[in-house]
């Protein structure tokens, strides 16, 4: 293998600044939306006292899950010693860092009292899964920062395997924590399952790699650097495995629920009668986010088309957002069964499916988080050497067939 040279992108073209400006515009809109929500209260959102986590959480949790998944490429290089992934590793770590930052920004700005961030950082209830996550997030930032340092600083290279291993283990724990935010909720029928933690890990593999591939292709195409088919073929095949595994976990999760009589009502809601949630599940999560990309990624002829590869990744991202919408909002829309065997009615909407429609500020805040992540990557690759000069086939794998 030829020696790989990492170099900053020039980032001086009008196109680069236009891209950065475009991303910054969305970040600014997101921050403006957060200010608007903070000023007026959540009354200006679609959220209410039945559905307290809405669109911002869909984006935030997606970004957080994708963040840990994006680090996988680096882990495969450092932990599993796959040489081909080595040149891809720094960008993977940067993307992981940026996605987590974007997700956490959304989560934080959606708080009822975002001004009390310092309270969240100084008061800990150690039994709370949320509190564990605060520790896991800050730990992830630190470990990934050190990991990037060991990869980019020649003198530190010998430690990169150890740092990569620490990051890999930490990301598994982090996504276990994210899944457990829901899995440890006994109150709601759609949750209270240990399966949610490993399921979130598998989902993170798929979402993170899809986002990584999109960023990789965009960065190399727009900066005019060569990106060979060998890398894309390898990553595309890996993505197919992840998407298939994600579908398997979703299948087992619903199969378990379908076997338990007490879970039949919530399963019927999600799979059959839930309106938008049913549509998003079958069409968004399963068809667009799973089956169609799988067909593209498993078929060598289709996979060879970069356009279709981009489409498959975009579909996986869309499917991921649909999955989060169903998992987070759909689960709340289904009413709590406080009196099993009784029909319930009250002024507080007991016993009825709860209504939610996303509002513009929520969507803007969510997109703002995506923009913050993308801005960090776009700027990061300009100021530091995250990207190899070339990922042409001959550079990454001399034995690859042209």
């Amino acid at each position: 293998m030829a020696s790989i040279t990492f170099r900053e992108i020039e980032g001086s073209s009008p196109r680069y600044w236009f891209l950065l400006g475009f991303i910054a515009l969305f970040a600014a809109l997101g921050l403006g939306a957060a200010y608007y929500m903070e000023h007026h209260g959540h009354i200006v959102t679609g959220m209410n006292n039945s559905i307290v986590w809405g669109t911002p959480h869909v984006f935030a949790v997606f970004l957080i899950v994708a963040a840990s998944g994006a680090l996988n490429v680096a882990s495969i290089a450092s932990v599993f010693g796959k040489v081909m992934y080595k040149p891809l590793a720094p960008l993977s770590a940067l993307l992981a860092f940026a996605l987590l930052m974007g997700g956490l920004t959304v989560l934080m700005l959606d708080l009822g009292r975002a001004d009390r961030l310092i309270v969240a950082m100084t008061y800990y209830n150690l039994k709370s899964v949320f509190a564990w996550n605060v520790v896991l997030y800050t730990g992830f930032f630190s470990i990934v920062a050190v990991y990037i340092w060991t990869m980019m600083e020649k003198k530190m290279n010998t430690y990169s395997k150890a740092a990569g291993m620490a990051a890999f283990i930490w990301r598994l724990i982090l996504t276990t924590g994210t899944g457990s935010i829901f899995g440890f909720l006994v109150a709601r029928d759609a949750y209270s399952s240990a399966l949610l933690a490993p399921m979130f890990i598998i989902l993170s593999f798929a979402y993170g790699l899809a986002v990584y591939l999109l960023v990789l292709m965009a960065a190399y195409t727009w900066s005019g650097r060569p990106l060979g088919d060998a890398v894309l073929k390898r990553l595309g095949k890996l993505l197919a495995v992840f998407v298939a595994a994600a579908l398997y976990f979703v299948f087992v999760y619903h199969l378990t629920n379908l076997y338990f009589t007490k879970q039949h009502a919530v399963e019927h809601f999600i799979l059959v009668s839930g309106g938008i949630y049913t549509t998003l599940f079958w069409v968004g999560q399963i068809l667009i986010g799973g089956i169609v990309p799988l067909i593209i990624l498993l078929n060598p002829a289709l996979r060879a088309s970069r356009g279709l590869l981009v489409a498959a990744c975009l579909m996986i991202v869309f499917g991921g957002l649909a999955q989060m919408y169903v998992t987070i909002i759909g689960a709340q829309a289904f009413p709590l069964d406080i009196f099993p065997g009784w029909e319930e009615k009250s002024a507080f909407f007991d016993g009825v499916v709860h209504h939610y429609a996303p509002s513009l500020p929520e969507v803007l805040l969510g997109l703002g988080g995506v923009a913050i992540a993308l801005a960090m990557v776009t700027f990061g690759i300009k100021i530091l050497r995250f990207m190899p000069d070339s990922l042409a086939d001959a550079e990454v794998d001399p034995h690859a067939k042209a």
Partner: protein
Amino acid sequence: MNDSQASHHSTSEVDEHRRNFIGASAALAGLTVAPGVVVYGLAHAKPDSEPVTNKVRWGLLVDATKCAEGCTDCVTACHTENAIQTGALETDPHWIRKVELKDMRTGRSQSLPVMCQHCEDAPCVDVCPTGASFKRADGIVLVDRHICIGCRYCVMACPYKARSFIHETLTDQNPDVPRGKGCVESCTMCVHRVDRGQQPACVEACSKAGHNAIIFGDLNDPNSDIAQRVAGHPTSQLRADLALNPGVRYEGL
């Protein structure tokens, strides 16, 4: 007037004096004892200087057989006491609501109030990242408004839909019950009244309406009305399968 008449007259005069004396003494005694009774009440109320103790476990018992369908006096009293403005919007806060139930098999209907169940092992307390959601030693579950960050994880965790998030700026608050936009809140069992030795507003209102469907008291005190009712009658806990040991019990459900 003969002697006997004179003697009778003097006897009745003496009786009258005696009666007046006894009456005045009783009144005086009453006046003397009254502050003592108040002090006794306050002593039971817990002086501010003393910490809350776990010797007491405050609880509520709702007798569903006495709760009248359509009556919302407990809800109104709660709103008045805690200065809660609520309406028909899904964003409006509800600390207590009347739930109308219909048995899916028999069609039998029932009506009862549902509020924070003040669980011993409260899921809202478990999940709160900052510890803002907490349980007092005497079993009352509260939110510390100073460290609630408004994450709503407790709302997600509560199996009783007992918590509300405040979606907009509040006005006309009761100084005893501080609340605020961006925080989560729920029934406090009228802790400000309980600490003064009074009953929660819903309990008082139900009793005033003549239903006496909600009783309040110390579940740990075997002599209390509530403890005896719970010990002597079949009562149930909402979502007993979750084993949260709520401080609110239901009879006749």
